[in-house]
């Protein structure tokens, strides 16, 4: 059956696509009536707390839990050795990241502890407080081992090897050499070089990680309530490591209190909780307290990059090379691995520009620090900041305005499809359109003039630009090709009930971004009903189609397209039934505002509730050869490109107090091209939140470890996060280059803000400091570092 509608699917009457509709399902969150996992109480639910290693590296000699076992209310104490009988260990490698290696990791350490905070024993008790009482009384004897805490020396001959069976501390290395970089530098008028450092930081979701595992032995069923972004992935892994049938495992994600990539990984303590539930045959709950979060939630970044760039006097960039070193944890995180961020740096750096000579190397080493893995914008902030930083250096070296250097080197808007140095194809980007729009929006020339005037008065303001590309809508090439059961496709099932109400169940998940809202908007538009008539179900592996979830800026681009396809087909099915009822050709009908109408005149013919009444209660009145189907499932996976690239540009305006080193963020501007925008207010919310998260890493956030692998600031008073008073207003504009790989044309928008902000902030600070011959290159840019750059401390 074909749809002869002459209207574009995105432009139908009463379409919600492109409208800032308030999210339909969040009034309950505003009234404190959400259901976060910590709000769930199950019968016989026990609580686990973990005794965690105080050492970064040690052998476990003995564990004495006698005193702990005597605490009234303690149910069971379990060590790693016992738990290993229930749960198999895992290895965080992907086969398409060639040469990657990592050691098997257990849910609870068996012999060797490899980072401060690794669980050594579990205490299960009637409530959390009693479990913690038990934890206090556990005595563990350790033989301390040398701590590998410095990535610069992790591969040195004399450095202790954390896992001797692996031979060395190298986890992954990636190199890329395109064109002739040596010739490019020889032909350049200036070759600039710099070393950039990016501190370790972490996600600090407002809701800490939480899991309730409910193993039911009679039927061998496992239900897991989890604050997560990828329920189907976790369902597979629980079954795999508990040796269960996957069909017996159900993962339910209720309201999730922020994720940002923190809640898309396989955490040892969560795996232990699931195993404990199976062992004890009752529900077990684990909630990371904030101190545990800091030493166990994945960390990110921690890169040192030496970069060089060649440029001609006319502003043409001739080539770039860099060497990136990053120290991750003692294990590569499972199953997405700790190699993706470095790989992204190799793939993405300099991606907005036309130069063809590119040499990149990234080395990932193991350290006795907490594990690192994918966190919002994975690799992008590094790739963007090093390229944008060195481009500004080059601009200064040849005396050209940084906006002009970008204009000279950004890929022309008519050059697409364009094959990047990485070998990946950019389908359609809009760098120049975005640059022009940004400069106009911020009044770039006016700000430059103001800057010059204020410098005369000893006020140091700076303007920083950062052009960027972002990887979104990943295909199976991201993880599936590496052997991980992480789905790149998503599905949506739509169902019309007798009253004309529509339920859409989707495999993408909601963590606050608005995945449920855009699903409702797309389904309402494509079926032809008011958004109030659409209910969205997500986050439950038992009742939604199989799919990836929400991460890597994929939910709208992939899950949204599945919703569009499902809604369209449901509309078609409705038209066929209505056609039979009205004795009209289906193609002369449409569904608009919950009513079947004549497509040409818009004349109302039949309410959907009447179609539903007949289908569900008076099917006898329909033709015998018509079996009405008011449930439709559709799926979508990106096929044309391994990734759908987006682009954008950011600018920061800052003022540096050269006496105190404090940087005031005055304003931020963003122009973003994420293709078709479903809900502008939600996209802007993603960008603003992302920018501030990027600012956090650039200015404030730092997991500070000492030489012994001890985290020095593992609490929210000592680890600084962005608070309202320090953050600027952010003005946003859009360009739109929809992807043709889908009818919806949507690209991802979840990470662009975080990608560009650190580079833009850094460039703004260095622009402010440039008359003083000072420069910062080591994030986060604390007042102390600014004063050091100024030679004042």
């Amino acid at each position, binding site marked *: 059956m074909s749809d002869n509608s002459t209207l574009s699917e995105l432009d139908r009457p009463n379409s919600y696509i492109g409208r800032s509709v308030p999210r339909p399902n969040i009034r309950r969150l505003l009234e404190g009536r*959400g259901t976060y996992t910590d709000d769930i109480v199950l019968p016989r639910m026990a609580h686990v707390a973990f005794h965690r290693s105080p050492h970064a590296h040690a052998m476990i000699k003995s564990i004495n839990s006698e005193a702990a076992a005597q605490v009234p209310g303690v149910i069971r104490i379990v060590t790693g050795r016992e738990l290993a009988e229930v749960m198999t260990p895992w290895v965080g490698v992907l086969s398409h990241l060639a040469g990657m290696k990592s050691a098997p990791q257990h849910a609870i350490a068996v012999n060797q502890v490899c980072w401060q905070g690794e669980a050594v024993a579990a205490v299960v008790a009637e409530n959390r407080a009693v479990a913690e009482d038990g934890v206090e009384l556990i005595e563990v004897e350790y033989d301390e081992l040398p701590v590998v805490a410095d990535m610069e020396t992790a591969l040195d001959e004399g450095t202790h090897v954390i896992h001797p069976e692996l031979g060395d501390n190298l986890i992954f290395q990636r190199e890329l050499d395109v064109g002739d970089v040596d010739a490019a530098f020889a032909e350049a008028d200036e070759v600039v070089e710099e070393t950039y450092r990016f501190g370790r930081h972490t996600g600090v979701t407002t809701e800490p990680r939480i899991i309730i595992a409910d193993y039911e032995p009679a039927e061998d069923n496992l239900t897991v309530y989890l604050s997560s972004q990828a329920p189907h992935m976790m369902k597979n892994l629980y079954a795999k490591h508990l040796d269960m049938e996957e069909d017996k495992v159900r993962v339910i994600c209720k309201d999730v209190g922020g994720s940002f990539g923190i809640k898309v990984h396989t955490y040892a303590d969560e795996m232990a909780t699931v195993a404990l539930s199976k062992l004890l045959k009752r529900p077990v709950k684990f909630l990371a307290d904030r101190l545990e979060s800091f030493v166990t939630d994945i960390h990110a970044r921690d890169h040192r990059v030496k970069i060089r760039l060649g440029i001609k006097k006319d502003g043409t960039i001739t080539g770039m090379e860099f060497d990136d070193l990053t120290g991750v944890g003692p294990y590569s995180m499972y199953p997405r691995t700790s190699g993706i961020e470095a790989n992204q740096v190799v793939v993405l750096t300099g991606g907005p520009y036309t130069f063809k000579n590119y040499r990149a190397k990234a080395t990932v080493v193991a350290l006795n620090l907490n594990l690192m893995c994918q966190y919002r914008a994975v690799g992008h902030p590094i790739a963007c900041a090093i390229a944008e930083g060195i481009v500004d250096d080059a601009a200064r070296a040849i005396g050209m305005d940084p906006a002009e250097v970008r204009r000279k080197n950004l890929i022309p808007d008519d050059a697409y499809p364009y094959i990047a140095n990485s070998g990946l194809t950019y389908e359609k980007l809009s760098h120049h359109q975005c640059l022009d729009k940004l400069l106009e929006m911020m009044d770039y020339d006016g700000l430059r003039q103001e800057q010059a005037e204020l410098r005369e008065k000893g006020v140091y303001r700076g303007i920083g630009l950062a052009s960027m590309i972002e990887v979104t809508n990943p295909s199976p090439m991201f993880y599936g090709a590496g052997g991980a059961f992480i789905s790149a496709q998503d599905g949506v099932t739509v169902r019309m009930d007798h009253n004309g109400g529509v339920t859409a169940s989707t495999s993408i998940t909601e963590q606050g971004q608005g995945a449920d809202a855009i699903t409702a908007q797309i389904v309402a538009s494509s079926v032809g009903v008011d958004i109030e008539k659409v209910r969205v179900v997500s986050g439950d592996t038992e009742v939604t189609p199989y799919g990836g979830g929400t991460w890597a800026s994929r939910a709208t681009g992939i899950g949204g397209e599945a919703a569009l396809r499902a809604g369209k087909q449901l509309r078609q099915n409705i038209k066929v039934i209505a056609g039979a009822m009205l004795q009209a050709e289906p193609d002369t009908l449409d569904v608009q505002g919950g009513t079947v109408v004549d497509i040409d005149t818009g004349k109302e013919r039949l309410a959907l509730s009447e179609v539903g009444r007949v289908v569900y209660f008076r099917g006898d009145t329909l033709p015998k050869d018509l079996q009405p189907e008011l449930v439709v499932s559709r799926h979508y996976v990106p096929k044309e490109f391994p990734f759908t690239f987006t682009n954008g540009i950011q600018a920061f305006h800052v003022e540096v107090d050269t006496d105190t080193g404090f940087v005031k963020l005055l304003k931020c501007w963003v122009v973003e091209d994420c293709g078709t925008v479903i809900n502008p207010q939600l996209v802007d919310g993603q960008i603003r939140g992302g920018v501030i998260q990027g600012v956090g890493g650039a200015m404030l956030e730092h997991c500070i470890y000492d030489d012994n692998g001890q985290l020095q600031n593992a609490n929210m008073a000592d680890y600084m996060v962005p*608070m309202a008073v320090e953050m600027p207003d952010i003005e946003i504009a859009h360009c739109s280059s929809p992807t043709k790989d889908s009818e919806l044309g949507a690209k991802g928008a979840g990470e662009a803000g975080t990608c560009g902000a650190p580079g833009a902030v850094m460039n703004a600070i260095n622009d402010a400091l440039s008359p003083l011959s000072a420069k910062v290159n080591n994030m986060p840019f604390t007042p102390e570092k600014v004063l050091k750059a100024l030679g004042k401390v």
Partner: protein
Amino acid sequence: MSTLYPVTVTVNGSPVTRHVEARLSLSDFLRQELELTGTHVGCEQGVCGACTVRLDGRITRSCLVFAVQADGGEIETVEGLSDNGEIDDLQTAFHERNALQCGYCTPGMLITANELLKKNPSASRAEIREELSGNYCRCTGYHAIVDAVETTGRQRQGGAK
């Protein structure tokens, strides 16, 4: 540890009595004893503001108060302030402006913002940012929250609901 102490408080207008351990925080008391799960716990050290409630008319970090300390007190939580309509305009503005994403910080944010607007409905954006700086939000970047609070303040000043 097992000694229990009686605590009698008025919560959202209703008197309740429970016998609790001395170490039980007010936030855990509200969540676990009274099942008022709108009060969220984020850091348990008074930094993040997710657990903000009103105790005897003043906004308070309920994770930093023991339940036994609140004995005899009057507590208002997001559930009560929703039921009595006191923050309805703020909630509507937050909804329309999408000033919440995951919603975990939202109850505390609303209670703090309401306190600010009661004192100073004409607060500037800078003043709003200053006042909300004890409430951590990871999702929004704060801009939309400041917008929503500013809009509500203007409405309250104009007498509009």
